């Protein structure tokens, strides 16, 4: 289900003295099966934009059409739409409230009014998708979970609604390296095995580089780039000006590139950079 955004504008506190414009004339289209990274500095408007995709925000001007449904249409079934476009929030504590993991994951399907055996099946499936063992974790108290497990529970809670598109809003914030890697692995698997469209919001270029094929850069409410990852990351100076911190690997590649190494800074993957350095060193030795 493609998401089409045309001429979208949005202002916070519209009609009050504190009005602040956060989105300016945004146009974009997200197709089925894509993995799109949305990146931008904090308060650039990326969350506001993404929350238009599942009608948590309704456009003040312009249009958002999700699978043919205009979210501003008064007759549109927004509840159904929100099940189709799942949204996982940054902090799992906003979402989790039930007494145990299984109950919390069952909340969404129950809201859909499914019979209990279907709910149970959905919970089981969702738990396996995020790598939480059903028997071990079903009745585990949510507050006894680690940060990574909590986030996986939150993702499972949304997956249990069977979304076709998943919006993941800065879900690795505050995790340690191991927890972060677990979450990234889950996201990759969801895309490759379930063909779920992934919209991954982050302010970490490392993570975007690892997951996304296409990258949308938001700068002060405007789309600064919307292109293939390699084309976007090929413009480090511009990204830096926007206020994004370049990944360490990338600055390293840029430095080496400036020193005459044959390295493309937009590669970003560790193994690719390693290979380029090895190749460059070999070339150099051959030349000598």
């Amino acid at each position, binding site marked *: 289900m493609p998401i089409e955004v045309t001429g979208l504008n949005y202002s916070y506190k519209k009609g009050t003295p504190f009005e602040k414009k956060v989105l300016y004339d945004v146009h974009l289209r997200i197709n089925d099966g894509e993995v799109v990274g949305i990146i931008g500095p904090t308060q650039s408007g990326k969350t506001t934009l993404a929350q238009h995709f599942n009608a948590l925000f309704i456009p003040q001007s312009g249009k958002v059409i999700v699978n043919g449904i205009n979210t501003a249409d008064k007759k549109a079934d927004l509840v159904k739409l929100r099940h189709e476009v799942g949204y996982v929030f940054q902090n799992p504590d906003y979402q989790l409230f039930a007494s145990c993991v299984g109950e919390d994951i069952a909340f969404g399907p129950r809201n859909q009014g499914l019979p209990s055996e279907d709910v149970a099946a959905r919970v089981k499936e969702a738990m396996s998708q995020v790598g939480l063992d059903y028997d071990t974790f079903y009745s585990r108290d949510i507050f006894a979970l680690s940060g990574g497990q909590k986030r996986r529970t939150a993702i499972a809670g949304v997956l249990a609604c069977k979304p076709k598109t998943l919006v993941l809003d800065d879900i690795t914030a505050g995790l340690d390296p191991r927890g972060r890697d677990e979450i990234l692995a889950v996201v990759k698997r969801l895309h490759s095995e379930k063909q779920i469209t992934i919209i991954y919001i982050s*302010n970490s270029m490392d993570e975007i580089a690892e997951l996304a094929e296409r990258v949308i850069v938001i700068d002060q409410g405007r789309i600064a780039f919307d292109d293939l990852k390699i084309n976007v990351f090929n413009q480090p100076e511009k990204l830096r000006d926007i206020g994004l911190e370049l990944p360490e690997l990338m600055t*390293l590649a840029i430095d*080496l590139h400036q020193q005459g190494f044959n390295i493309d800074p937009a590669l970003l993957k*560790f193994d690719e950079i390693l290979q380029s350095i090895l190749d460059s060193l070999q070339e150099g030795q051959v030349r000598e």
Partner: protein
Amino acid sequence: MFILNPLIETFDLSYAYRTGSDRQVQALREVNMHVRQGEILAITGQNGSGKSTLARHFNGLLTPDEGEVLISGLSTSSRENIPSIRKTVGMVFQNPDNQLVSSIVEEDIAFGPENLGLPPDIIRKRVDHALLTLNLEHLRQESPNQLSEGQKQLVAIAGVLAMRPKCIVMDEPTAHLDPRSRREVIDNILRLNREEEITIILLTHYMNEVVHCDRMIVMDQGFIMMEGTPTEIFYQDGKILDYGLDFPVATRLARSLKLHGIDLDDNIIHTREIVERLCQLK
């Protein structure tokens, strides 16, 4: 072992959290460590490794079940030492929203000195100095709600700085921040150590922050697993991965290049070091 100028020392420190119905979670097990005056010490370990519990012993927020913690020679176990310990060691926590008290930046920074019972003009001077040191002067009348997460964290640091501590413990101060604010906060922490000669204890699991520290401690399951300079620890062996941590990017690259037969030294932890070395090799 005799340590010159120990600011903090722990001796066989053990601590357990009691979580209802007699269940105990052993958070620290016979921890022996020290902090030297003037150094930057990184304490790393994955979530739940006990580093935060350890840090809370440094200014008497927690006191040992067993063993002892000495701050400038004063034991945290005697209650009468606590006020003076808290003047010596300040703490900054992970979430800036949950540590700021006042709705005006400068008043929040004044909160600590006010608690120390200082005269108004002295408090004013300290607040001004803290604002100046962290480049927050233009925000002095703002409400913390108007600031970015990174700015809020700097306000929290300023609030501790205004208490003139000898040492500041930073409990994952960057975990909630975006990459750019993270660097800003770290740069400021390093500057405080350099210019104000404040001892820094930095709890983190970001290895690109650890590389700036003089010394590091790796914790896991309440034990201290490794201790040494970052170079020593990253080049000892691959043990650090077992504790859920990473190598810094430069180290990881250097190690891989070495496996491919490239001649590199065993002390590369900064990106600029590897760039320099590779340029020499070219």
